[in-house]
């Protein structure tokens, strides 16, 4: 087993990997941008190497810096988390060339699945069902309009090199194509340096169902059930479940087989996720995420394993445990993503400083976060602050438990997606399992919460009144100044000059 690994990521996923590595007795090395120098993933790692800079490009996306950090810290392997360099085949190759183990799939497998057009070709060859659409990407709106006439509306436009919902637009009619193509292509160009889009049929009442797979280096592969990820907006998931109400044991077995078949076709190793669109009993290959998935915890809770541990052990050459393929699901797990955004204002990003934190607890509640009081939430990084996950004996109990946990949670200082998740979970249609990928977009979030308006009004009045009263107590300017100076100085950092040259 590795003695030391570097985690080439930040936020909750960096901490997630650090946690498992600590439990395995592996020394952990964090990397960090200037912005993240007090971050929890840095404090919880055994070692930390500064990458400098504040943007992703200056830090977590800089391959040279990350590999140099791994070498200088004596790391033996790199875990990329998700996002950033996790699905970058060039990076994976460079890691290996540097004599380090890559805790992820082979570069060829990343490439085979990295480009959506290539991946669809691979899947067609491997007899994996794919969604009707064009195999080749289109370059401009005019070509898109022509192709759309053959495939038929509604059409999904997707970045050829994309992922994570960026550069995706659904076009319902020809007149929308021009504008949709422009923004989608622009996003794709800005995010991936490739403005080409590919097109496919947009399925009716589709569910997003994905299968977790694991492959070792010795030819063994298993599937670990499905995740239901249909509660999403602009292809950004908000709520995920394991298992799915839509999937029978027979369909689960069939999807699992096909997912393993898909992985085998491209020589997959390590953990991966095969995403399907499920529509009226049929399912179609969508894409494969060649990395750990954000929503992996729901699988962990239902199947009773630690996927990050499996990843590390596979990378270290271990065979998959013989019992792995026989693991039985128990109960139901749900995850809610806590994003820094304002769901009542079109989910626009929310920024600020985390003033207060109250973590939910009690039975069946797991919180994966790297939050801390005093943390600044800016625009440089992904808006996901935390993942709240619950497990219970069955779906109705899991829903009620998640509602209870969300009621306990408090993230002060920014607006979050939590109230929107609460509204979904309380919705009767969601509770009955009647939803598809359009559910969240169709939800009316403008309906004001009723009931406690008078209490809130009175409390707000008292809050302001008492705040004013306290200000009156600091009777003159001098006192006020001393107060604010002091408050400011209380969290100032005093780096010593020597440290500049070192690991900062």
């Amino acid at each position, binding site marked *: 087993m590795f003695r030391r690994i570097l985690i080439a990521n930040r936020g909750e996923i960096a901490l997630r990997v650090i946690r498992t590595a600590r439990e395995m007795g592996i020394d952990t090395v964090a990397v960090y941008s200037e912005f993240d120098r007090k971050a929890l993933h840095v404090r919880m790692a055994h070692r930390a190497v500064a990458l400098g800079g504040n943007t992703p490009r200056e830090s977590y996306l800089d391959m040279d810096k990350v590999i140099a950090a791994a070498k200088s810290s004596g790391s033996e392997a790199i875990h990329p988390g998700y996002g950033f360099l996790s699905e970058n085949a060039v990076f994976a190759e460079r890691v290996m060339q540097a004599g380090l183990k890559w805790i992820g799939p082979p570069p060829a497998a990343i490439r085979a699945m990295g480009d959506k057009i290539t991946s669809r070709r691979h899947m067609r060859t491997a007899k994996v069902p794919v969604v009707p659409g064009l195999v080749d990407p289109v370059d401009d709106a005019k070509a898109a309009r022509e192709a759309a006439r053959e495939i038929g509306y509604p059409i999904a436009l997707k970045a050829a090199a994309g992922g994570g*919902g*960026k550069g995706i637009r659904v076009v319902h009619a020809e007149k929308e194509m021009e*504008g949709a193509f422009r*923004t989608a292509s*622009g*996003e794709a160009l*800005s*995010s991936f340096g490739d403005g080409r889009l590919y097109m496919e049929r947009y399925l009716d009442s589709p569910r997003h169902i994905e299968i977790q797979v694991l492959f070792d280096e010795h030819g063994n592969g298993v599937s670990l059930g499905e995740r239901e990820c249909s509660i999403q907006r*602009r292809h950004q998931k908000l709520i995920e479940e394991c298992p799915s109400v839509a999937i029978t044991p027979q369909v689960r077995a069939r999807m699992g087989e096909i997912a393993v078949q898909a992985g085998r076709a491209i020589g997959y190793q390590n953990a991966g996720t095969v995403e399907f669109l499920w529509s009226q009993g049929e399912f179609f290959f969508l894409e494969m995420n060649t990395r750990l998935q954000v929503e992996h915890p729901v699988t962990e809770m239902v199947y009773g394993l630690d996927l990050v541990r499996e990843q590390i052990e596979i990378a270290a050459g271990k065979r998959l445990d013989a019992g792995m393929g026989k693991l039985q699901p128990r109960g139901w797990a749900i995850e809610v993503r806590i994003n820094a955004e304002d769901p*009542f*204002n*079109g989910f*626009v*990003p929310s*920024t600020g400083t985390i*003033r*207060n934190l*109250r973590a939910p607890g009690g039975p069946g509640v797991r919180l994966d976060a790297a939050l801390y009081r005093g943390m600044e939430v800016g*625009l440089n990084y*992904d*808006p996901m602050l935390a993942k709240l996950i619950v497990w219970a004996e069955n779906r109705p109990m899991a829903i009620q438990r998640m*509602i209870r946990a*969300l*009621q*306990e*949670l*408090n993230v*002060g*200082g920014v*607006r979050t997606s*939590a*109230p929107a998740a*609460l509204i979904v979970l309380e919705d009767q249609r969601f509770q009955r399992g009647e939803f598809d990928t359009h559910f969240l977009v169709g939800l009316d979030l403008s309906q*004001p*919460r*009723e009931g*406690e*308006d*008078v*209490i*809130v*009004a*009175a*409390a*707000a*009045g*008292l*809050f*302001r*009144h*008492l*705040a*004013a009263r306290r200000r009156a107590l600091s009777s003159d300017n001098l006192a006020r100044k001393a107060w604010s100076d002091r408050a400011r100085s209380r969290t100032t950092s005093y780096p010593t000059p020597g440290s500049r040259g070192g690991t900062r």
Partner: protein
Amino acid sequence: MKYFVTVNGRTHEVQVRERLGELTVEVNGKPLDIAYEEVDNLGQVAVRCEGKSFGLSIEGDDHRLGAVIAGHLYAVEIEDERERAAHAAERTASKGGGMIKSIMPGVVVKLLAQVGQAVEKGQPLLILEAMKMQNEIVAPSDGTVQAIHVKERDAVGSGAKLLTLKGN
């Protein structure tokens, strides 16, 4: 002191009186039997009222705040009597004209209109990128672009002025 507190679009008159160090509260003219106790200096408040108990998380400033009860957010605006009068006057004065502000922090990726250009309601005026998502900012009504307050590549904060539209 009297406050005008708007919760979910409805305004309540909250009268707070202080006598011998104790506070009494009236909402919309009716006394309210409420115990309000701040737990820490981070907005955690224990509230009890008519047998019910609430753990509120309040944050914001004198004029706008958010109160969370059991996970649900109540957005609140507060004015005192003086502020209410001033705001009312302001609202009367600024009738017509249209300042388009950014509803999120982001970067202006592309301007799609010029000063003097006539635009239709719904027409894209600029593209704002935030969190790597590109968002079209569209004209809220027919009109003419009177001024553009940003240029391409500008980073703008939430509430920043983008364009001024002159209604037809």
